[in-house]
Every structure is written in C-alpha cells, then in structure tokens.
C-alpha cells in the first residue's frame, strides 16, 4: 500500500472556528481566479448532489458532521454528464469546426477524501498517457479542491479496503474537524495561497502542524465496517498473475444473473469514466457531444456487423469488476475504486464492489493454495 496517498505533505496550516464558511469560500474563489464558481453539497429533492452556491448559501461546517457523503459523486464537475466536444457550422458547404470556450475556474468546497482521491485516479487515465483528454484537463486545471476529512465513517464506507483512509490527503486544501475548530492544511501552492488570503499571511508556531498531523492520524486510524472484513491487498500485489484465473472463475456466472443492467453502479461511481461520443445535427450546424456511458449496457460494445464481445451479463459484470479490481491494478498499480460506498448503497440487487472484491480475493487465495498444493 502506498502510504503517501494517505499522509500527504503539508505546505502550511491554519486554524479557523467552525460555523460559517463564506470567508473560506470567498478566499478560495479569489485564488481560483476571475469569475470562479463555488460548488458545495446541496440537496435536490431527496438526493444530495453538488450545486453552485451564492455567497449567502455557502453551507456551514456542521453540514459535514451530518452528511456522510453526497449521493451523486462530484465527478460531474469535471466530466459533465453531457458536454460539447466541438461545434460545427455549415456541414455541407463550408465546414468549420470550433472547440467550446475554456471553462470558468471552479472551487469545490468539501469533497470527501475518497472522492478527492478519485480525481487522482481519473487524472492518471484521462490526462496522462500519449494523449490528454483536454476538456477534462482544462476543468481540472481550473479547479481548487477543498477536501473535508471524515470525522466518522458511514455504514457503506470502504476507503480503507482500497488503499485509502477517512482523512487521506488529496486535493489542494484539507479541512480537519478539531473540536469546535477546523484545521486547514495546504497540499498544493494553490491551497497555500488560500491560507495566505484567509489569514493575511500571519504565521504561527510549529505546534499547529504538529496538531494537524495528530488529528489526521487519529482520523485515519478509523476503520470502516467494510474495511474490517475485507483484505484485498493480494489482488493488487499480483494483478497480472491473477488475470487468467479471475477471468475464468465461476463467480461471474454465479453473481451476474441478478444484475439488472441498469447502469446505476457506473453512474454513481466517481471512478467510472466511460463515455460515448455522438453528433447532434441541427440543419447544417450542430454539435459533437460526449456523454457518460456504461459498460453494463449491451449496446456499449455491439459492433457495426452485429458482433458483441460481451453479449451477456456474465461478460459485462465481469468487465466492470475486473476493470476496477484487476485490469486497472495491472496497468496502474492501484484499484480503480476509492471505496466511496455509493455502489454498495445504490445497487438494487446488492451486487457491489465489496461483495465482488471478497469473492475475488477468495478465488485468488484458492488459486494460490491450489498452485502450492500442486508443487
């Protein structure tokens, strides 16, 4: 397990009283840049998601004591459900193609550590490599992320099963609850600027960074209910060596029949990023859009000639969980899951990453002991 994903390195710290956060939001908006928009958790009907906050309705800090996490992940702030890739004009006679304008700077106030870590995972896929997904990269680059460490864990939380912890350091600025106060710790130069703006640059002794470390360590020591029973390290340690065994395991035919192919798990998941590209013509003009897609849909992989490499739920369910728990670890060395627990809560038939992770680690252990027995 990579400990730096949890501890981070503080560039500076500050202490503010709990309560209203409008000053913090305003400082962050100034640092983020002209026209910055501030997003915070907000309820829409019965669903907690992310909403633009005006100065007057910036949430107060007690929100994060009440709310374990939003139902909808904040990934849509960087990869909207639908967005323009390009707009074209005069398709038939004098075609021209233009990219959309650069996105405005954005402050995201109070993402949970698991969700903040999900962006690091998405960055590796979407920004790094031979090509960069530019619209994602632009939004990410224009964002200031304020991460709120978890004072308690929820029943479906599983961060510690996936190499993280309830106060894992990620984003630009960490907020740690500390009694009646909040400790702020900057992880990036941008986060440090926010502290400078908020405090006028006044400095204090080393006691504060010591306190940050102590509070972070105490919060990180919390074990989640799921994490207590899941031990998945074996799956990342030898991902490449396990692919063939796990791929051909019986668990897929056992688990997949109950899947409804509804795609809920992929839409609520902060680390699922599959998308589709489609054209929307309006006369000679139009736009090319990208929308969220789901590997759980049959059409996802049906080809022009009718061939489909994943024709049934067995292959599609296998794809989702193998991608998260085996293929991604093979390619990137870590799970494509931050244990946010959303699929655990949302899947209507209880077919989620904790259950499948457990089954996979059992299958892996069985394969290892069979190999030993055969020696």
């Amino acid at each position: 397990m990579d400990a730096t994903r949890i501890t981070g390195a503080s560039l500076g710290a500050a202490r503010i009283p709990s309560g209203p956060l409008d000053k913090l939001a305003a400082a962050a908006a100034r640092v983020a840049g002209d026209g910055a928009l501030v997003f915070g958790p907000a309820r829409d009907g019965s669903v907690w998601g992310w909403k633009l906050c005006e100065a007057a309705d910036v949430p107060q800090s007690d929100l994060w004591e009440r709310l374990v996490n939003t139902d909808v992940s904040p990934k849509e702030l960087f990869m909207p459900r639908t967005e323009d890739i390009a707009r074209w004009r005069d398709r038939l006679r004098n075609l021209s193609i233009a990219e959309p304008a650069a996105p405005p700077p954005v402050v995201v106030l109070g993402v949970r550590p698991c969700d903040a870590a999900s962006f690091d995972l998405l960055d590796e896929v979407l920004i790094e490599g031979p090509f960069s997904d530019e619209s994602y990269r632009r939004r990410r680059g224009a964002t200031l992320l304020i991460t709120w460490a978890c004072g308690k864990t929820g029943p479906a939380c599983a961060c510690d099963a996936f190499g993280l912890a309830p106060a894992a350091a990620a984003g630009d600025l960490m907020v740690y609850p500390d009694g009646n106060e909040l400790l702020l710790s900057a992880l990036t130069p941008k986060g440090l600027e926010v502290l400078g703006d908020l405090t006028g640059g006044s400095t204090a002794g080393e006691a504060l960074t010591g306190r940050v470390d102590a509070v972070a360590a105490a919060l990180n020591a919390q074990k989640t209910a799921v994490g207590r029973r899941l031990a998945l390290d074996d799956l990342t340690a030898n991902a490449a060596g396990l692919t063939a065994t796990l791929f051909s395991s019986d668990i897929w035919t056992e688990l997949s029949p109950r899947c409804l192919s509804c795609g809920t798990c992929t839409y609520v998941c902060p680390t699922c990023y599959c998308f589709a590209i489609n054209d929307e013509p309006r006369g000679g003009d139009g736009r090319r859009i990208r929308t969220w897609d789901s590997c759980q849909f049959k059409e996802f992989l049906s080809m022009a000639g009718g061939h489909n490499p994943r024709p049934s739920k067995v292959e599609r369910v296998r794809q989702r969980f193998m991608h998260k728990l085996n293929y991604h670890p093979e390619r990137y060395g870590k799970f494509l899951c931050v244990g946010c627990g959303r699929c655990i809560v949302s899947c209507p038939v209880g077919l989620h990453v904790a259950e499948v992770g457990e089954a996979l680690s059992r299958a892996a252990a069985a394969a290892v002991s069979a190999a030993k027995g055969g020696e």
Partner: protein
Amino acid sequence: METILTTSASGAAAAAPAPTLARNPLVPLVATIEKVIDETDSGSVRNFLVRLDDPAAHEAISYRPGQCGMISVIGVGESMIALASTPTHKGPLEFAVKAAGRNTNALHEMKAGQKVGVRLAYGNGFDTEAMKGKDLIFVGGGIGMSGLRSLINYCLDRRGDFGRLTVVYGARSPGELCFKEDIFENWPKAPGIDVNLTVDVGDDQWKGPVALIPPYLESLNPSPQGSLVVVCGPPVMIRFTLLSLAKLGFTDEQIIMTLELKMQCGIGKCGRCNIGSKYVCLDGPVFTLAELKRLPNEY
C-alpha cells in the same frame, strides 16, 4: 486565528496543471475528399483520398504503417480505419472503407470535393524495427489488405531494410480484390517481391488459382526460417490461416495480427476497447499471436 505558512513550496506537491488551450485530440480537423476510388466491383469498398484543409497540418502528419485514423461524416459519426496510405509517400491520406454502419454508409454517399472530419494517428502500428532484415509474408483477405498495403508500400520504399517480401492475397472473386493497381501492376514489377493472388470463385478472365487462402498458403509452403508473417482479414479466414501457419511451423511470436474492436475515442480514454488491461486503440491494434494468447479471450 492561529496560522503557519510555509511559503517555500519546496516539496512534493506539484503545481496543478495550467488550463492552457492545447488542442483537444477528440476534435476532428476539417479535410477535403480529393478522390473516391471504387475498390471492388460490388461497390462494397471505397477508398477515400483526403487531405487536411490546413496545409501545414497536412504536412505535419506523421504515422506508422498499421496505425489508424478517425474519419467522420460530420453530423453522423466517426469510424476508426486502418490507414491504407504509407507515410513514405507525402500524398493524401487513404481510408479504404467498407460500408457497414451509419458513418461508413454515409461516407459511401460522399463525393470528391466534400468535407469530412479527420483525426489521427492512433494505435501502435507495425513494429517495422523488429521486421528489419527479416523475410516478410503478408497474408491478406478482402479489405484486410488495407493496413497491409500501407506496410507493403513502406517496405518497398525502404527496400534495403527487409528480406524477401511475399504477398498472399485473396478475395471472394476477382472483382473483390482491392488496390488493383498495386497488386496487378506496381508490386509485381518491384524487386524482390512475390505476389500471390487467389479467389474463392473465379470468372472468365481469371487465370490465377481458385482456392481459399489457408490451403493456398500451405501450397506455397513458405519457410518460417528468419521470417515474420502478418495476417489481416475476416475472422474465419484468420482462424483457418492460423491453423495452416502452425502446420507450416510458424511460432506464435512470428505471427503478427491486427484486431478490430469497437472504438470511440481512439485515445485510450472512453473505456470501450479494452481486452484485459490492454487498450486496442493504444496498445494495439497490432499484436503478435503470442501476445494475444496472453490476453483474456474477449474480442
């Protein structure tokens, strides 16, 4: 308020990526169709010769044989197609396209002078370094000749780098053989290349062999010694050709293939084309048979 600020950002945390306006690789470039060649009598395959409208961008194009490009009828869709042209000729890009879906059907309706969107170049392409000094056998079926043609013309332009070149190409009927100028005129005249053509069903003018590719290949009895074989074609042909190659003594490492999978972004982001931990659009479409056998069987 108590604060501590360490102003030197002396450490681990790197600056967040600046929101500069690099070109979005998903946005196609405007290109003009210069010429449309009907490759087959049935009209099933058309070769679109296209040039980017921005001359500097066209000049700057670089690709390897076996790499693909995305060609789009704007407003309809996009298709990933193996480039049939060779980077050693500074001409138009060539996309030999079979009408098989919405975008390719719409493309087949298009004429010279009309506009399309193009972006490239995707995939690993053929490892021409590993091919240096080797005898190369190219086995193509139908439109599978497309990517092979890029490689064959590349090899002919760099003739000294490679050993003997053997082409084995088949189609359902003589009229369905693509790239007729190359296979009947240019290649037979070139030095050190054997061109072997076969058809499933002949016609009045056809004087060549009438045989399926696998038995025909076996009858040619190519030696595995110091050679590599590149196979591109429809799935059934591939399946039986692999059996024949095994019989002839070729190892899995000597057999090079290209995969076709549904693709959308072409740049390793949309999550559509993975086989296990590999992305066909980045790590493929070219794999050796040995590499393919190490991947989950899901393509």
